[in-house]
């Protein structure tokens, strides 16, 4: 698109001089023929060298543009576009482009020609974008984690000094053109390895990647269809879902692949979900400072065979309020309730809250609380967690972030767990991240405490 000397030079010499001479001659002629006397400057009878040079310069410019045109532009065939048009049709089938008494407005499609010139680059880009929009987008996400256990308290256990490794690979399929405002999404996940909880008797998973999934096998994490109706204020999702994608979200503590790895700092354990399953979510979101969600989902231990939709059914609802307190930043305040019959002893209930609040552009506080009956466990479970996430400028690099969190889980008639975690997430490229974690967990059941240093590598395409 810049000047092409190889094209430019051969053209230049004899051609241009002749052209220039012709031009100057024509100028003189044209000027005399077309300009009314006394109304415009007259062309000199004999052009000066400066005029000649100026003309050569202009021809240079023309050649440069011709070269650009030849090298970058798609020539000017009209572009065919198909447009949605509103027309009015009467009872005899006559079509009008305006309202007519007795005619009914209807939508149809019609082609239109446009005089648009695009560069080859634009044309190719448009076609690729068009194809991409029609096709299914495939994504790949792999997270490999290495953790070690160093026991600091209690009677020595098998885990002391052991290392654990886990790798989880997700392949996602996303098709956004299923129908108007309707998309399909599926996530196949394969998990293999040894998470620390195989040897540490923890109330909550110390590696949240296996949450609600089966280890050492390929499984469907999610597969759902989502549509939006009522001017796209109401979103409806149905299929195999992970209800925690919709309920109990948190800006600073909700992703085991990039934030805290401990499951107690990813979701509220009082939710009581054992696995992903068939379900549906309705989300009313007017895009104001609140939204409301209601969901149902089956969730049970993967080894259980369910009889019908009446078995192990979770019913959940959440109200979210978005606020902006004075000098503070944006805060999300969510309260949810849950009722389920997964324990086989009738419906049991729980509730919880999830809060994240920015206190500056780089610092976000978070907290969760939950209380209620879980599964068939006697009594109630209570849970709380809290912490802080930091972003730039409190980081090594602009896109890094890190956080510190604490969580406490307590069964009314059983054991309790205290957990602390710090992590640093290092943004290497848009496709590659590395994290370093340090967890501490204390289990009251056996009085054991452990430090778990770890590292995590995430690749996303």
């Amino acid at each position, binding site marked *: *698109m810049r000047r092409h000397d190889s094209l430019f030079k051969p053209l230049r010499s004899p051609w241009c001089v002749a*052209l*220039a001479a*012709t*031009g*100057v001659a*024509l*100028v003189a*002629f*044209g*000027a005399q023929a077309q300009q009314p006397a006394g109304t*415009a*400057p007259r*062309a*000199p009878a004999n052009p000066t060298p*400066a*005029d000649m040079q*100026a*003309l050569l310069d*202009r*021809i240079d*410019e023309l050649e440069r*543009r011709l070269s*650009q045109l030849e090298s970058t*532009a798609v020539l*000017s065939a009209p*572009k065919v*576009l198909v*447009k*949605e048009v*509103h027309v009015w049709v009467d009872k005899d089938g006559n079509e009008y482009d305006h309202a007519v008494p007795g005619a009914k407005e209807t939508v149809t499609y019609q082609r*239109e020609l*446009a*005089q*648009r*010139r*695009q560069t080859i680059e634009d044309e190719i880009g448009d076609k690729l974008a068009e194809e991409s929009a029609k096709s299914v987008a495939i994504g790949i996400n792999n997270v490999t984690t290495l953790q070690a256990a160093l026991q600091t308290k209690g009677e020595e256990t098998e885990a002391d000094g052991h290392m654990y490794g886990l790798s989880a690979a997700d392949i996602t399929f996303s098709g956004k053109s299923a129908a*108007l*405002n309707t998309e399909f999404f599926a996530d196949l996940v394969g998990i293999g390895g040894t998470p620390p909880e195989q040897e540490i008797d923890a109330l909550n998973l110390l590696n949240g990647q296996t949450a609600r999934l089966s280890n050492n096998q390929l499984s469907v994490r999610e597969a759902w269809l989502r549509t939006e109706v009522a001017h*796209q204020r109401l979103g409806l999702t149905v299929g195999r879902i992970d209800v925690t994608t919709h309920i109990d979200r948190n800006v600073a503590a909700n992703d085991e692949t990039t934030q805290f790895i401990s499951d107690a700092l990813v979701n509220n354990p009082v939710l009581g979900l054992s696995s992903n399953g068939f379900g549906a979510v309705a989300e009313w979101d*007017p*895009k*104001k*400072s609140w939204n409301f969600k209601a969901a149902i989902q089956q969730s049970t231990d993967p080894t259980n065979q369910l009889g019908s939709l009446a078995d192990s059914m979770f019913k959940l609802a959440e109200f979210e309020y*978005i606020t*902006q307190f004075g*000098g503070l*930043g*944006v805060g999300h305040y969510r309260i949810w309730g849950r009722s389920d019959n997964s324990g086989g002893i009738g419906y049991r209930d729980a509730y919880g809250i999830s809060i994240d609040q920015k206190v500056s*552009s780089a610092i976000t506080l978070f907290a969760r609380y939950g209380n209620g009956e879980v599964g068939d466990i006697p009594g109630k479970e209570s849970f709380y967690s809290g912490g802080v996430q930091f*972003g*730039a*400028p409190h980081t090594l*690099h*602009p*896109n890094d972030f890190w956080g510190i969190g604490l969580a406490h889980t307590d069964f009314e008639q059983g054991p309790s767990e205290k957990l602390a975690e710090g992590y640093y997430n290092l*943004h*290497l*490229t*848009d496709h590659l991240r590395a994290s370093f974690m340090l967890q501490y967990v204390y289990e009251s059941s056996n009085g054991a405490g452990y430090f778990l240093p770890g590292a995590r590598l995430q690749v996303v395409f």
Partner: protein
Amino acid sequence: MRNVKGSLLSASLAAVLAAVSGPAVAQAPAQTQAPAHNMATMKMSPVTGPNVKVTDPTSVVMIVDRDSNDIAFMDIKTKEILGRTFLGNNVNPHMVMMSPDGRYVVTGGQRSNTAYIIDSHTLELVAKIPVGFAPEHLAFSPDGRWYYQGNPEGDSITVIDMQSLKAIKTITGLAEPLNITFTPDGSKAYIGNYGAHWVGVVDVTRHELIKKIQVDATPGITRLDPSKYLTEIKGIFNATPTPDGRFLYAADGDLGVVGVIDTREDKVVKVIRVGPDPWRTYMSHDGKYALSANNGDGTVSFIDTAKNAVVATYPAGQDLTGINYAAGKAFVISSTTGFIYVFDMKTLKPAGRIKIGNNLFLQTATTDVADQKLYLGSATDNSIYIIDGQTEAVERVANVGQFPWGTHIMDSKDNYCH
């Protein structure tokens, strides 16, 4: 003497082109008119006459129709198209702007490498001026004397004298110059370079690039990602001024920051991290907030200009192409979703979203001078949507031309392009 020579060369070029290229290109020479007035001091008054289609330039919305290659003039009150100026096949005009005195309307033909000057009253094309490669965005100096036409694919700006209606200089040394911001006194112009991470400072007296202001350093870790940083660059779309012109807010796409430039010192006084891939900032009319449209994650960051800090960030849909202000609200255009996201500028909270329609490709909008109504271009249904800022009622004006992708109202505070 210069005018005589200019006429001679234009005429000679026309003659050569007529001989070589045929009649279409032979129309190239400008029918130049040399106004003898001082454009800065000229006051508008209604113009009448047999050929006059627009008596008051402030009474129309100008619409850039990319694919029908014209500028349409719509009456603000009646919503009727008063006239069109056809520029030529495959011109593909990009942005339109009225001169500060209301006498001319100008646009750059992105695929004709030409600037077009239109009489704002008769809607006749009065000059076609060759400029650089792929002209897009443009600006007038505050006194109206200079029309700077950016040529992003030619890495240059063409300076056009609005008195002689001729290109007098080409400013080179830029890197995909997109938007031009003049200081209120007209002494300097700041150029957003999308192909670099610096803002160019042009001395308007000499029309020369005199300084480059880097908005932020590129982190060393970017070297790990050659597939991103060595294939495409998303630099600075524009430098958005505060109402008094004292500070500029320049978003950098790759770096994910907004650099605040002090125009007295010509230096960066603060770097503010916003969301990923910020497209540009849009200044609220009171100058209290600069909103950054972050296309990397479809959010809008609210920058408090007193604190120079982000005070809120909210989702606002995909493919953000513009932000307008009206009736105390911000209206964020989400191009491919068919929605306008609304935010209350007092509480800085989301205030809903307006559904314009399905299968639309929304473009940019201008706001009327009363800050009450938006005029939004919708490319795929050849329409303008008028949005009442107070009631959020939407009215469609169809058949304004093919692919309307920009609008302009004289003296509007929200005249921008994408």
